[in-house]
């Protein structure tokens, strides 16, 4: 019987729990082989680092392309053009960033501008360690920059103000959700759309509600096969099938069920009612992940500047 390891990020726990079972069944049905699928979850950056350091993964399913880029850059596990190997930029599902507020929206938060008002506490994880947080950051930046006619200065000013309103920086998306929901800290949580839905289901529709901003970012969590590992372990076939299965209607159904926006047009349509209609911009606005990562999140990047003393 075979075994593969999927190294993923925090908010996909529920999705892959179900998806793995489904794929194992599918695999058994098509090949007759028993398949055991192991998963590892954690902050997206940490997971990428583990893979680089030798965590023996067959596939990675991370929060953003730059984390897989980092793997390609810092190891020889997969080639730099990994993103071209699967449809839709190797992103079988997408998501976006929405706001989670307390029931009844007591602070009256409607859109991004409300987040930088004095006295509003915003909860987001640390962009240095969390993939989700980087999407949060870029979504806010993009909104402000667009509003000012594409001015980076406006974007920077906006996120600087925004992070002044952040009282707690957890290391991962899940930590932030707990802080917001369980500890009662903050007025608004910036969250993956699927996290927001999950939080409402798991932790109480009576306590929370989702606020959809006017504009947000199209978050594309990518997937990839780690060539070197699968070749060494002889699992290439099953690993590729595993990721391809994400693109099948079955896989897409499961993604949708867990509030990821499906890519396949017919399913996207089927679940359109489930997802609010937001104007979305994508990462290319920032010149792609490689540039965005370097400009904003690398050591000495814009995000670090926000936390320079005396500001």
């Amino acid at each position, binding site marked *: 019987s075979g075994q593969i390891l999927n190294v993923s990020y925090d908010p996909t726990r529920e999705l892959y729990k179900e998806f793995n079972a489904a794929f194992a069944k599918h695999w058994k049905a098509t090949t007759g082989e028993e398949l055991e699928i192991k998963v590892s979850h954690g*902050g997206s950056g940490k997971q*990428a680092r583990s893979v680089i350091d030798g965590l023996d993964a067959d596939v990675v399913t991370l929060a953003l392309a730059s984390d897989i880029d980092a793997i390609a850059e810092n190891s020889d596990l997969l080639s730099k053009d990994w993103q071209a190997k699967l449809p839709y930029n190797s992103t079988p599902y997408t998501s976006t960033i929405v706001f989670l507020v307390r029931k009844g929206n007591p602070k009256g938060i409607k859109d991004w501008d409300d987040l930088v008002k004095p006295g509003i506490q915003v909860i987001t994880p640390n962009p*240095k360690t969390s993939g989700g947080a980087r999407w949060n950051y870029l979504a806010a930046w993009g909104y402000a920059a667009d509003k000012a006619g594409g001015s980076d200065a406006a974007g920077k000013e906006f996120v600087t103000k925004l992070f002044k309103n952040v*009282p707690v920086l957890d290391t991962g998306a899940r930590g932030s959700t707990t802080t917001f929901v369980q500890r009662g800290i903050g007025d608004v949580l910036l969250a993956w759309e699927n996290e927001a839905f999950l939080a409402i289901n798991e932790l109480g529709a009576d306590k929370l509600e989702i606020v959809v901003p006017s504009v947000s970012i199209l978050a594309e969590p990518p997937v990839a096969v780690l060539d070197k590992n699968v070749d060494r372990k002889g699992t290439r076939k099953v690993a590729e099938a595993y990721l391809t299965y994400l693109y099948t209607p079955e896989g897409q159904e499961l993604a949708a069920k867990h509030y990821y926006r499906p890519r396949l047009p017919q399913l996207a349509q089927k679940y359109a009612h489930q997802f609010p209609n937001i104007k979305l911009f994508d990462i290319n606005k920032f010149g792609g992940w490689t540039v965005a990562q370097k400009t904003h999140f690398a050591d000495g990047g814009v995000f670090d500047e926000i936390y320079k*003393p005396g500001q």
Partner: protein
Amino acid sequence: MTVSSGFSLFRRRNRSIIPGFGLTMGITLTYLTLIVLIPLAALVIRPWEIGLSGFLHQVTEPRVLAALRLSFGAAFVAAAINAVFGLAVAWMLVRYDFWGKRVVDATVDLPFALPTAVAGIALTALYAPNGWIGQFLDPLGIKVAYTPLGVVVALTFIGLPFVVRTVQPVLEELDTELEEAAACLGATRFETFMRVIFPVIFPALLTGFALALARAVGEYGSVIFIAGNMPMVSEIAPLLIVIKLEQFNYAGAASVGIAMLILSFIMLLVINLLQRWSRRWAGV
């Protein structure tokens, strides 16, 4: 007498009568080298690729400095709190009889045994604004969780047993005759404590303080849950190491690690000197 027996004579005259030195020393050094020294050497040589200037640049970044300041500052405050209250606890356990004393005594060691992550989660649950304790502090404007104060709380928790457990035996062995002698000479209870008891337990108190401090400086598991992790404010140095690691900045992570080691070492050295000074009467 042959040469060889002459040699063995020389050799055997200098040996100790208790056997097993070679074997046990061998085991000790081998294990120490494999488990501790080689891995730490790997840490120390890691930043070489960035050179000394790179190292200095890494550790003088404002965020690194702030984190180091927090880690060491909060650890210092926590150790100080433990010194004061730990002394009270030790005193209470040694000098007073009360119901449930044995149980209280046993629980002092809990922070040794309780996993730090569990402690972190539990403390956060308690001190969050809606927690058991936090709900009473919040209206007073006292925020514990997600502030440097929270870091101090977590570090106080993990350092708690050290002071108690180093002071307790010294207090137990403290000859009550000393106090009686002081009383006979006309000292008040307070004078007796300050002039007779305290100087004697001070070295032990210092040891406990140093141990609590050393443990607290590097603590990670219990702190990240309660700290809030705000850069420049409540971000501890070990977290910064983790963050740097996740940025694939190994040299940076190792640099911060080395900076912590060096600072801890200096700090412990100072405390050791202070301790030696405070026990100058013990040396012959």
